[in-house]
């Protein structure tokens, strides 16, 4: 039986300010630092990722938003300059990444088997979105592990949140099946911020931390409540509250990465390791890890039958 591993999942948000604050050689703008607590949180995450030694990183990003279906990067190498259209003053990043096309194709096929519209992006001149680039840099600045990049279908916004996240659940299960079929040792990255209300103006010096704080008490309290539940391993409760969290805190988890990741992991009721929290232009951001390997939950087996076969010979017949 085909078998792979999901070693861990990380909540790995993508504010470009964190890359800007770090001053890596790939990023053109130079800063005086800033957002140190979140960047140190990512240092902890980088360390544990390094210890896991995965074959592949899969990342679901809200900034590759697609209308027709769920899309996967499908070109072996993608290279270019990612310029953030909202914060071009902070993020102009020269990227060069390799894609695990075989796994991406397996994910695409498994998604289609589950009734989702799924597509492979085959144009080598495609500009990878800045959310994907930022999360990948913050987790693995060496860029030495192949990736699978997934789009965020707009179903949670176009349909109801419930219907949209049901699609993301299916996508996560498809991802799990594909990892099993290909025998990969995978790490999943949910590129999502938590509360997403934000300031509408930037300070003169963007890295002036005296101007950085939560936008609202309510958003901050929601973030703390959800983080505490995650730290306690109360996964079911987290997902029971997710719709209300999204509604009241404008949480970016609405875009689906968080649901995708947990669905792929099988919604484990294990404590999330909390590495740090901070605001970026007022939005709430946490870096957390669910280490399935440590809890003996990393092995994933491919389903014995495909979802279409499981539905029976009359499935879809009039």
């Amino acid at each position, binding site marked *: 039986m085909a078998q792979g591993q999901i070693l861990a999942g990380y909540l790995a948000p993508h504010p470009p300010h964190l890359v800007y604050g770090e001053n890596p050689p790939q990023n053109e703008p130079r800063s005086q630092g800033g957002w140190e607590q979140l960047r140190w949180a990512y240092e902890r995450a980088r360390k544990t990722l390094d210890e896991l030694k995965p074959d592949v990183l899969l990342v679901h990003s809200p900034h590759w938003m*697609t209308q027709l279906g769920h899309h996967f990067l499908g070109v072996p190498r993608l290279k270019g300059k990612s310029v953030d259209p909202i914060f071009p003053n902070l993020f102009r990043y020269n990227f060069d990444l390799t894609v695990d096309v075989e796994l991406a194709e397996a994910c695409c096929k498994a998604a289609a088997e589950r009734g989702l519209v799924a597509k492979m992006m085959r144009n080598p001149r495609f500009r990878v979105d800045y959310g994907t680039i930022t999360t990948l840099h913050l987790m693995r600045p060496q860029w030495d592990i192949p990736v699978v990049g997934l789009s965020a279908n707009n179903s949670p916004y176009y349909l109801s949140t419930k219907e949209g996240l049901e699609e993301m659940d299916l996508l996560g299960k498809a991802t799990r099946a594909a990892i099993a079929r290909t025998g990969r040792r995978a790490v999943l990255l949910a590129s999502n911020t938590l509360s997403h209300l934000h300031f509408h103006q930037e300070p003169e010096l963007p890295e002036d931390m005296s101007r950085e704080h939560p936008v609202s008490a309510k958003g901050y309290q929601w973030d703390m409540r959800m983080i505490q539940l995650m730290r306690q391993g109360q996964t079911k409760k987290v997902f029971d509250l997710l719709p209300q969290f999204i509604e009241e805190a404008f949480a970016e988890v609405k875009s689906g990465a968080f649901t995708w990741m947990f669905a792929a992991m099988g919604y484990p009721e294990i404590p999330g390791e909390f590495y740090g929290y901070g605001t970026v232009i007022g939005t709430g951001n946490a870096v957390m890890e669910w280490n399935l390997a440590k809890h003996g939950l990393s092995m994933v087996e491919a389903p014995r039958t495909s979802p279409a076969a499981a539905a029976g010979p009359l499935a879809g017949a009039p």
Partner: protein
Amino acid sequence: MTIVAAFLVPGTPLPLLRPDNPPWSRIANGYRAAARALATQRPDVLLVYSTQWIAVLDELWQLRPLISGVHVDENWYEYGELAYEIRIDVEVARGCVEGSKAVGISAKGVDYDQFPIDTGTIVANTFLNSHNQWPLVIAANNLYHSWDDTMRLGEMAARVADKKSKKVVVIGIGGMSGSILRKEIDIRGDSIASAADDAWNRRILDAFQKADVARLKELCPAYVKEAKPDMGFKHFAWILGALGGRIYGARLHGYGPSYGSGAAVVEFKV
């Protein structure tokens, strides 16, 4: 004020990438007719607002004198890629940055190598300005700006261009009804997603042609809520603001579907 023409056009790349597909050829042909009409006016500058260039902090204006490259649309890449070369009227654009602030809207110019240019701007420029004869001024769509804010920006931009003695064409880029078909289709059979959306689009287009601004003001809020045109239909607010809150009729050059959503090429009488 020397506005010589105004157009509302769609930002979908499908008619440009596959003009041979019959449902999309109506829009492609509409765009070509609009381009011929525009060319007869011999403008100095095209004032463009694109719903697809998103901003969330300040109002953004493109300041790089020449932008070029090859763009791959994040949704419709399977149909091809979009080469572009766009000249910017930097003098007017800079004036719009200052003008935005003067009307109480915080604004910035952007001048960065490989700044991402949105699909809608590229499509409109390719169809309407195919030899790059005329420079553009491009305004972003700030998500938090209201209909009234966008009208003020349109009015201000036209005034800035007028002060510099420019002959202006105003262009608002965005779609009509916004529901797309969420399963793959045979593109030869593309159609507007629902009869209700089609009816709404036609109601609006009819009001354009009858120059019925009062009716448009009455209809637009419900149109936005029920048919979900791009970004609250602010691309029309831009045009209306630039035209001083009045339209004198319109000519419909093309109307049709774009994977279920509504697309129209409209030339307003000025």
